């Protein structure tokens, strides 16, 4: 001990102080701040996403409509790239030097250390040649992905297409989508996106300081497997769809066929269509722009987006509604002098002078006069003010699924138009108007807009004698046969079944009676009931409309065909419908080749006036053809696939 003993405490004090400083600091970074823990997890954890296969879509007989096909994305990690022969590289990949530098710069700007897509979707052949020489190009590698493939190039508008997610979709998805993901943009791909996309899997890998994987975090406790998208079974009949698309080739219009007992859509044709394979792969962007700019608008989904005044087929609805209202019965007869007079000087012309017409023949011969009187009864002689009678009538019509969306399982369905009483009150400045003010509604003209889907649905109602199921395109999801409850609910059209037979009799005669408007679309052995229509088109040639269902008893198919600018319903639409119906019911076609060729060859696109018919191919009722002429058709498109030989 000496005089400086007390300094021991100074020194020990410093030791204690320093130890406390260290402990405080350590306490701060370990317990108080969580910044370091987060950084530690960032350091070591890598989430690797496992992409699920998108669900495939089958037709009603489980034939493939869309499947997945592997493609190869060329990836690059700029930092790992070593000098190499760019000329060879560009040649192999099929790009030019300028494009190479542009892509490389883009990848480098994204991140020098992370992999980014250098070139998307190499074809299998490019991949094969490139793969052999991949070792020469350090820093590049190929990543396997799948894209959609449509083996039959059919039903484009129905299936829709997928594309890269937009910024907006990423924002709205609550973190589900990431940059570069694909999602459904239109059609079934969009409306069933949540089922089709499946579930991404995540692997939580631990990596070391050099980013080398070192195993699964917590032994994979937090890893999830990718779940493939659901397999969708559509109600579509692929063969029928293909036949319809061929028949509608070079024509503008739609064909919608529905199974009345379920509301399942059997064919969904929008013409002109396009090859869905165009919307896949590297050229998608260009193809899309081309399709978008075509004057015939192939991207327009006509069955649900095109609205037409229905024309004469609307008489079916009026005949039913008027019976339900008790204002006509099968015996109600009017004299047709070639038109219907109303008001002081109003006159609605009829196609012919039909003479004495009853309910059945009014349908068969499509007499305008008859429906002028009928409409007049319903609106002006209903024992109430016409405006209220109109409301009652409108309500009855709307129960046929007209004037509002049917909620088909596709996006962007249009409502159509069923005018309200207010429209006329506003137009005429008072509500003291009567049937004469909108008499054209009696024959389906005027302020009416009905989509082909709605037309087909009306036929389904008639076929069912008074009810319908909402039309839909997907009949089953995955292994469990579930569809939305909405589609299994029976909707009543508000017409007593007993009123249907007389109308159906008329429709049967349209096709099957020698004086019917669609007699040359008669199908041997099948009693098809139909109604022709000609929709007045102020912009050019009238639209040809035909709706039908078959067979008369226990109907299996209801169909609507519209061919724009094609004139009478009986000329183009009815034969197309009859072929479709025969094909669906018998899996084969018994009509002569000339009959089909005429339809296949016709070019009814506006501006290309090839409406002329070859002499000799004049239409004749089917029954008049000799048996020998009924050649079995050999053209491949119509190869028999069904049970009936």
């Amino acid at each position, binding site marked *: 001990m000496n005089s400086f003993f007390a300094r021991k405490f100074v020194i020990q004090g410093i030791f204690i102080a320093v130890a406390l400083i*260290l402990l405080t600091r350590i306490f701060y970074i370990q317990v108080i701040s969580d*910044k370091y823990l987060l950084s530690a997890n960032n350091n070591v954890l890598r989430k690797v996403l496992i992409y699920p296969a998108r669900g495939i879509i089958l037709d009603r007989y489980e034939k493939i409509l869309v499947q997945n096909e592997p493609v190869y994305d060329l990836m690059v990690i700029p930092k790992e790239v070593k000098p190499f022969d760019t000329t060879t590289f560009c040649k192999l990949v099929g790009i030019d030097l300028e494009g190479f530098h542009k892509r490389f710069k883009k990848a480098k700007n994204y991140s020098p250390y992370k992999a980014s897509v250098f070139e998307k979707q190499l074809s299998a052949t490019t991949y094969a040649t490139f793969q052999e020489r991949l070792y020469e190009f350090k820093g590049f590698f190929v990543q396997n992905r799948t894209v959609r493939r449509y083996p039959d190039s059919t039903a484009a508008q129905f299936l829709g297409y997928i594309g890269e997610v937009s910024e907006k979709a990423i924002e709205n998805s609550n973190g589900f989508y990431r940059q570069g993901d694909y999602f459904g943009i239109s059609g079934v791909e969009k409306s069933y996106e949540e089922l089709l996309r499946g579930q991404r899997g995540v692997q939580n890998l631990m990596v070391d300081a050099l980013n080398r994987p070192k195993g699964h975090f917590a032994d994979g406790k937090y890893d999830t497997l990718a779940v493939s998208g659901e397999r969708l079974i559509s109600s579509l009949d692929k063969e029928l769809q293909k036949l319809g698309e061929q028949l509608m080739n070079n024509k503008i219009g739609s064909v919608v066929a529905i199974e009345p007992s379920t509301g399942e859509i059997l064919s969904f044709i929008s013409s002109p269509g396009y090859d869905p394979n165009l919307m896949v792969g590297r050229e998608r962007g260009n193809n899309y722009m081309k399709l978008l700019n075509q004057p015939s608008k192939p991207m327009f989904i006509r069955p649900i987006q095109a609205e037409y005044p229905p024309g004469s087929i609307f008489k079916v609805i009026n005949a039913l509604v008027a019976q339900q209202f008790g204002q006509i019965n099968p015996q109600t007869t009017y004299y047709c002098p070639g038109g219907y007079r109303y008001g002081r000087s109003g006159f609605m012309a009829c196609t012919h002078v039909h003479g004495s017409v009853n309910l059945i023949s009014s349908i068969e011969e499509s007499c305008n006069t008859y429906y002028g009187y009928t409409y007049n009864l319903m609106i002006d002689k209903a024992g109430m003010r016409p405006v209220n009678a109109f409301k009652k009538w409108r309500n009855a019509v709307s129960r046929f699924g007209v004037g509002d969306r049917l909620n088909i399982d596709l996006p962007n369905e249009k409502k159509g138009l069923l005018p309200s009483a207010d429209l006329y009150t506003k137009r005429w400045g008072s509500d003291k108007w009567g049937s004469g003010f909108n008499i054209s509604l009696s024959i389906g003209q005027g302020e009416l807009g009905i989509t082909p889907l709605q037309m087909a649905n009306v036929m389904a109602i008639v076929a069912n004698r008074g009810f319908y199921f909402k039309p839909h395109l997907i009949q089953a999801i995955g292994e469990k046969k579930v569809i939305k409850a909405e589609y299994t609910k029976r909707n009543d059209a508000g017409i007593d079944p007993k009123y249907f037979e007389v109308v159906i009799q008329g429709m049967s005669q349209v096709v099957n009676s020698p004086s019917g408007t669609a007699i040359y679309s008669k199908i041997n052995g099948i009693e098809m009931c139909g109604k022709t229509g000609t929709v007045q088109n102020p912009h050019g040639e009238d639209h040809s409309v035909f709706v039908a269902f078959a067979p008369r008893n226990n109907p299996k198919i209801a169909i609507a065909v519209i061919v724009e600018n094609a004139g009478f319903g009986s000329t183009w639409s009815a034969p197309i419908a009859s072929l479709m119906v025969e094909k669906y019911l018998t899996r084969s076609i018994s009509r002569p080749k000339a009959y089909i060729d005429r339809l296949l060859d016709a070019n009814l696109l506006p501006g290309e006036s090839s409406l002329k018919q070859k002499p000799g191919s004049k239409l004749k009722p089917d029954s008049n053809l000799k048996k020998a002429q009924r050649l079995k058709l050999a053209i491949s498109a119509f190869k028999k696939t069904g049970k009936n030989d």
Partner: protein
Amino acid sequence: MIKQRSPFFNVDWIVVITFLTLCIIGWFNIHAAVYDPEKPSIFNLDTNYGKQLIFIVSAFILGLVILLLDSKFFNTFSPVFYGITLLLLILVLIVGRNVGGNQAWIPIGSFRLQPSEFAKFSSCLLLARYLSSVNIKIQDLRTQSVCAIILLIPMSLIMMQPDTGSALTFTSLVFVLYREGLSGYFLIITAILIALFVLSLLLSKVFLIFGLILIAGLLIYNNKKNRSFITTVIYGFVISVVFIFCVDFAYKNILQSHQRNRIDVLLGIVQDLKGEGYNVNQSKIAIGSGGMWGRGYLQGTQTKYDFVPEQSTDFIFCTIGEEWGFAGSFVVIGLYLFLLLRIVNIAERQRSSFSRIYGYGVASILFFHFFINIGMTVGLAPVIGIPLPFISYGGSSLWSFTILLFILLKLDSNRMGII
């Protein structure tokens, strides 16, 4: 005739147990730091942890051997140890192997000897011998100069390797001089200079000088009547300003760029998480991720997957922090503090000033390593590569710390005798 006592009589076993505890903590954490799933056995001699076990056992044997020696031996032969160390330090500059930029190792067979480690205890011994000789007064300028020379020779040789960290260790011996009577102003002035050094790097010179003028003015104003105080303040002010410019010059021209960078990173002047700042940042992440109770033995991801460089040597504390959390850190720091305080107490109970001075030397050196090493892992001290005593991987450092400590224990066991 006094009965022959056991050589282990009077040995401070508490320090020995603390020493062994720290060694074993070190061994387990080295195992965790370099854990190799393919060689999971902690006894595998191909691995660092296997080797460390050999080092620990041999260090302990070495310690026991020291206890068997005569306590006079260390006093008597201290100039010889010092001489040998200096020779080795010169030798290492000629035949040494350069590892990581420092020519600090002499290869002997498969092992490498690091003379700078041994310079610590030999300098300590010589300093103790010199200061404990008769008629030595630390207040004399001559004494101070001799002390400075004893320390500066090995420091300079180590600087030439260049191993700044080890060289700086010798500055800690200022505690010894302080205890022996060096004016307390030395400590205060050292503290002021360190503060000025840091401030001159952080603030612009103009601000700093302006601030100094303000402080000097206030001091003078408050002590208007004390003329000698005023003179001191003015001297102090002038010296400070000169020092600021010297720092600036030294910083820009004398320090090597990596040292400059480390200081910049430490002071937060530059944020360089990929370069110089990487080590410290990763080290902080590793320690910080430990939380209160740690991730558990061998469960640390940061250290196991090599995010922290040099994690079994200089950054071994990261493994402790990550796997044992604040609890483990607390235990380790507590053990060190306990050891340091006990060493000071041991030093104070010596009857011979040689033993006391040597004891303070041991405490100072251990303290410096403890503070700087842990301080650098949590970003409180600059990254200078010095090991954590008894815990860091490495034979030379473990042996030299063991020798350092066990000489004190030997001296202490004989404290009743006269050297």
